[in-house]
Every structure is written in structure tokens, then in C-alpha cells.
């Protein structure tokens, strides 16, 4: 993996976290981030991440990697919150 | 108002058969149309794409068929669409 791939995946990860934290259903924080700035920040990070992936690979591949990575992150982030919650209860 | 609309009939057998049978006709007709319209592609590529077109159309019809208000309507709409596609194909072949 070259630097563009790594930074692209990292930026997308941060973007997904921002969007998740701006959702009223998030369970990481006591209160969600305010919706508009949070989503805007997440969107910008995702765009930057996508552009970085586009530097590392062909456009089609970058689009596939981007979509796969987002599907994975958005599935897992709510579950991470459950694990944290379970730890807190113990 | 929602309650003024006519109720959606379930018609499980009739709708499912329409989706399965006419969906197949629709899918193969769509692939035939694609095959005719993309004659400039090499045959190996065109044939593979035509094959890949069949399951999405077929399964799409099978999955969407329960949106019709009744089994009769499903048969009429899907049958009409199939007839339209087949007619188009015939016209293209004759022209």
C-alpha cells in the first residue's frame, strides 16, 4: 500500500466517524455533533479521501475501494458503540 | 388519503407466476435488444454482457411484481412490456 492509499483510507475513516457522530442515533458521545457541521466535515473528509484513493489507483478501482470501505465502516461503527457500552456496564 | 385508495390484492400465485414467467420473457427480450443495439462490440464481449443482463432484469421483475395492485394488472403490465420489447425486436430485425 502506498502513501496515497493509506491516507485515503484514513481520511475516509475519519469522515465516516464524523458522519456517524453527527447522527441522532450515534451511541459514542453523550450528545451527537451538531448535524450540519458534522455532516459537512464528514463529507469534505470523504471527498479528500476519495481523491487520495484516485491518486493511488485507477478511477474504477478507487470507486470500488471507496464504496467497499464505506460499507464496512458504516456497518461496524454502530457495533463499536455497543462494545463500549457493554464494557461500561461490566 | 390512504384509505380511499383501492386495497392491494395479494394474489400470491398469480403475481409470482407473472414475475417468474413474464420476467424471463422480459429479461431475454431485453438481452436480445441489447445484443442488436450493441452490434459494434466484439461478439465475445457482447454475448457476455447480454448474459449478465438476464438475471438483474429477471430478478428485478420477480422482486417488483408485488407492487402491482392485483395479479391481473401484473400480467397485463408485464405482458404489455414484453409485447412491446418483442415488437421492437421484430421491427429492428425486419428493418
Amino acid at each position, binding site marked *: *500500500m502506498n502513501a496515497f*492509499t493509506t491516507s485515503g*483510507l484514513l481520511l475516509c475513516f475519519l469522515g465516516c466517524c464524523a458522519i*456517524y457522530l453527527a*447522527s441522532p*442515533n*450515534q*451511541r459514542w458521545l453523550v450528545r451527537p455533533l451538531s448535524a450540519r457541521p458534522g455532516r459537512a466535515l464528514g463529507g469534505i473528509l470523504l471527498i479528500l479521501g476519495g481523491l487520495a484513493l484516485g491518486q*493511488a*489507483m*485507477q478511477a*474504477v*478501482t478507487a470507486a*470500488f*475501494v471507496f*464504496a*467497499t*470501505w464505506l*460499507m*464496512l465502516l*458504516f*456497518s*461496524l*461503527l*454502530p*457495533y463499536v*458503540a*455497543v462494545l463500549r*457500552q*457493554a464494557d461500561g456496564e461490566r | 388519503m*390512504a384509505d380511499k*385508495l383501492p*386495497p*392491494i390484492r*395479494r394474489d400470491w400465485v398469480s403475481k409470482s407466476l407473472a414475475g417468474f414467467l413474464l420476467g424471463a420473457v422480459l429479461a*431475454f427480450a431485453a*438481452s*436480445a435488444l441489447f*445484443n442488436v443495439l450493441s452490434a459494434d*462490440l*466484439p*461478439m*465475445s*464481449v*457482447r*454475448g*457476455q*454482457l*447480454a*448474459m*449478465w443482463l*438476464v*438475471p*438483474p432484469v429477471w*430478478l428485478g421483475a*420477480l*422482486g*417488483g411484481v*408485488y*407492487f402491482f395492485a392485483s395479479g391481473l394488472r401484473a400480467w397485463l403490465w408485464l405482458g404489455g412490456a414484453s409485447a412491446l420489447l418483442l415488437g421492437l425486436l421484430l421491427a429492428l430485425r425486419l428493418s
Partner: protein
Amino acid sequence: MRTDFVRIYKSVHTWTGILTGMALFIAFYAGALTVFKEPLARWVAPPAEMRPVTLADAPQLIARTLAEHPDSARDFTLHLHDAEHLPARLGWQLRPADGDDHDESGVRHFAATLDEGGAVQVNEYRPSELPGFIDTLHRVVGLPFDTDPNRWVMGVVAALYALALISGVVVLLPSLVKDFFALRVGRNLKRMWLDAHNVVGIVSLPFHVVMALTAAVFAFHDGIYALQDQLLHDGKWGSAFQRPKPSAAAAQRDPAAMLTPQALVDKAMVFAPGFVPSMLQYQQVTGPRAVVRVWGKDEAAVSPRARGGFLAIDPYSGKVMSSDFLPGRQSTGNLVISSFFALHMAAFGGSAVQWMYFVLGLAGAWLFYSGNLLWVETRRRKQTREMPEAPVQRRDTRLMAAATVGVCLGCICGISLAMVGGKWLYALAGPAVDATRLLYYAAFFACIGWAFLVGAARSVVPLLWLACGLTLAIPLTSLSGALLPASGLWAHASWASLGVDLTALAGAVALAIMARVTARRIAAGRPDSVWSVPASTTAPVATANQS
């Protein structure tokens, strides 16, 4: 969305889901492992005993092998890198003439090397059936052999799965925005399972749509092609892939005149920078249609097959014959077709994407498991205040809970046992015995039988611990091989092989956590559930879980 539609599609979703859920669990669990088919093959392969040959000596190896074993000329492979599952640099296979394309059982494998004196030494060997068997499980939803009828079963499952996806989205649409990302864990179990099911299902929907459609195509393409040949291609489809006849009179060619493997590799890398060759597949090199496929991968591109793609070169002139299957250099039409394969098999973006697919595949297995539990939870008979005792649960929910637990955990136990048992049997009995299938199905059916015998509530925790133990035995077996080589066991130190051990260790930890959480839930659970253990037997089970 009218509530009529939601109600109708809920029926569709329930029926398609309950009919296919357990089969799809197996397909996704085994499929997630199949992403790492090559590391699995390397992990299970016994240490090589053949003498290594350098790439510089490969021309002699090729020429002498062809001279002494002419039946290898049809199709042989020269590997560019060493790996545990490749006993020698050069290898070929002989298939029975009447065998099925996907049937590997009748195939004979040969490996060739040069001894110190430069003479060819050929060994026939039997590679472990394990990686191929896990692949087969995922291709045909847990059936033992990849045959036409079994693929049709898979095709029907895939079609129902597609319907389940469409109907699931329709059912979810009214609450899609409001409940996005919601995962509410608490007293309302139905709510919790619904959220757990929805969050994975809706977010990874494109992944699942791709899997459903490609699986349906892989199952039925022969039939569709045959029908389209009649309807669309006037019977000429078979000729679409034929290469033009060679113009010169067919003469026997001397393979000694071929370019060296290194020269062929260099040609491919000049033609396509970024392409990393892994092996050379020589086809009909003594005939007029000689061709070398330089197989390899390009992380920046979409590959047409799981093992990458290839550049076809004439081994005598070095002329490029076809780049139709070269990753990153395909025409748009071929790229679209390759994308379908790549999106099913994680053949793009390198190992990062393989790991993503591995986790998405396991998440898919979780989707089907949670779907079944949701079905059970929805049909629970609740105890009201007026009832002195918990009501007897419906028979169908009890059976479905037992089947879900038995099939899903049986699949996990079976695969882990087949991996461990294969290695131990090889250490004890040598290559003659390959009991992969026997071990898998013994564990699989034993787990199902046990789950039905004692019920879901009493079997789920012991079965989770069994799955944990068998999976933990995977790295322990390698550890035994490393510490006690005299036992006949072995451990490979490559990252691919160590990755299998470490992943199994992580899997065992995850299963242990699940076992503990499940045991706690059952102990603290309500009596009006299929997950409750009747009071008279709670004590022994609970203490067993504490240990």
C-alpha cells in the same frame, strides 16, 4: 410508502429469508475464508521436500521436463515465487477427459525439479483438499461437491436472496432515515435484533446485491448462454472464443528456442508497469498455437479473476498476443465483465480490500444469523401478569432456534475441525488419507443433532465453546509443530501462513466473548423464551459455563 406494500413485502422477506438464511450463512462464512484461499493452502501444505531451482535454471527445467514428460506440454505452469503449497518451480495437472470443469477430485498433480546432476525429477503429489473444499462449501451452500445440480440449488438460493434484499429494503424504507445507524441494545430484544439486522443489511446492501446477482449468474450462466445461443446468436456463440487458425503449416516446434522466463516477465513488465507477475502458464508450447499467459496482479486495477489477470505472449517471438485479460488494460466492455467477477472475489485493490471483504463476508453471515433470531424473537409467546407460569413456546420457533444454532455453529466447528484434523492426520498417516470432507460433515451433523436433541438454549453455549476450542486448536497445532517437530507436525513462518494462525486466534477470542455474553443472557433471561433453560436444569449448565 403504503402500509399494504410494507405488509406484503414483509411476507416476502420473511419467507425468502427463513428459507435461505442458514444456507447463506454457510455460503458467507466459507466465502469469507475463501478470500484467503491461497494463505489457507499455504498454511495446510506440508513442508516441501523437492530441491529448489533458480529462475535462471528454469529453461533447462522446462526443456528437460517436456522431453521426458510430453503430456505436460498441453498446459504447465512455472511459478515465479516460492510458496509452501507449491512443491516445485514447475507443475502441471492432468484432468480426466470426462470430468466436470469444477470437479477437482479426479485431477492428478505433478511437480518437476532438477537434481544436483541436472536430471529431471518429477513427483506426483496430492495437495490438501481443504482450500478447495471450503471454496466448494461457499459455492454450493454447504453441499459436498461442486456439480451442476448443486450449483442450481445455489442459484435458487441466490435468487431468493435477491428477493429478500429487494423486499427487505421495501420493508425498511418507511423508517430508513429515522433509524439510520440506530443500534438500541436493551430490554426490548426484538428491537435489538431488528436494529442489529438492519444496520448491517442496509449499509452493506450494494455488497449483497452484487453477491446475489453474481451468485445467480455463476449458477445459471450455462443455461442462459445455451438459450441465448439459440435466440440471439443463431448457434454461433461457441465460435466467439475460437482463435484464428494458424496460417503456417503446423510444425513441431522446439521449446529450447523459447524466450527465457525472465525475458517473458521483463516483456510483460515493460508492457504494463505496475503489473506484478506471479506465474507463467505455458499452453501447447510444442504446437503452432504456443502461448504463455503471464499471470499477475495490479493493485491499482480491477482484475478479471480471483488470482489476477494475464498478458498472453508468444513464447518464441515475444509478441504480445492479447491483453484482453490484463488488469488495467482492458476495453470498456471487458472491464465491465471483469468488474462483476472482481466485485464478487475481491480482485481489486490488493490485500486491504481482501481484508475488507473478509469482514464484510463475516458481517453477511451475521446478517443471516440475526435474521433467523429475529424471526424467532418475533414469534415469542410472552408471559403476562395473569399467567402463573411461562407459556410453552411454539414448536416451530423452538425447532428454528435449534436449527439456526446447530447449522451455523456446526459450520464453524466443521471448518475448524477439518483444518486442524487435516494437519494431524497428515502427521500421523501421511498424504494417503485426506479426511477433510469426513471431518467437516461429522462435526456439522453432530452439532445439528446435539442442538435438536437438547434444544437451542442448552446447546448454544457449549457449541460456542466447542467452536472456540476447535478454532483455537488451529494456532495451537502450528505451535506444536514449531515446538515439537518430531511430532510430524509443522509450522510455516511466512506471513500468509502466520496470518491464518493469527486470524484463527482472533476468531477464537471472538467466539469466547460470544459464549460468555450468551451464557450471561441465558442465565439472566426471561423464562418465556426459547432461550430459557428450564429451572430444574439451570444450575448445572450455569456452573459449566462459569468454568
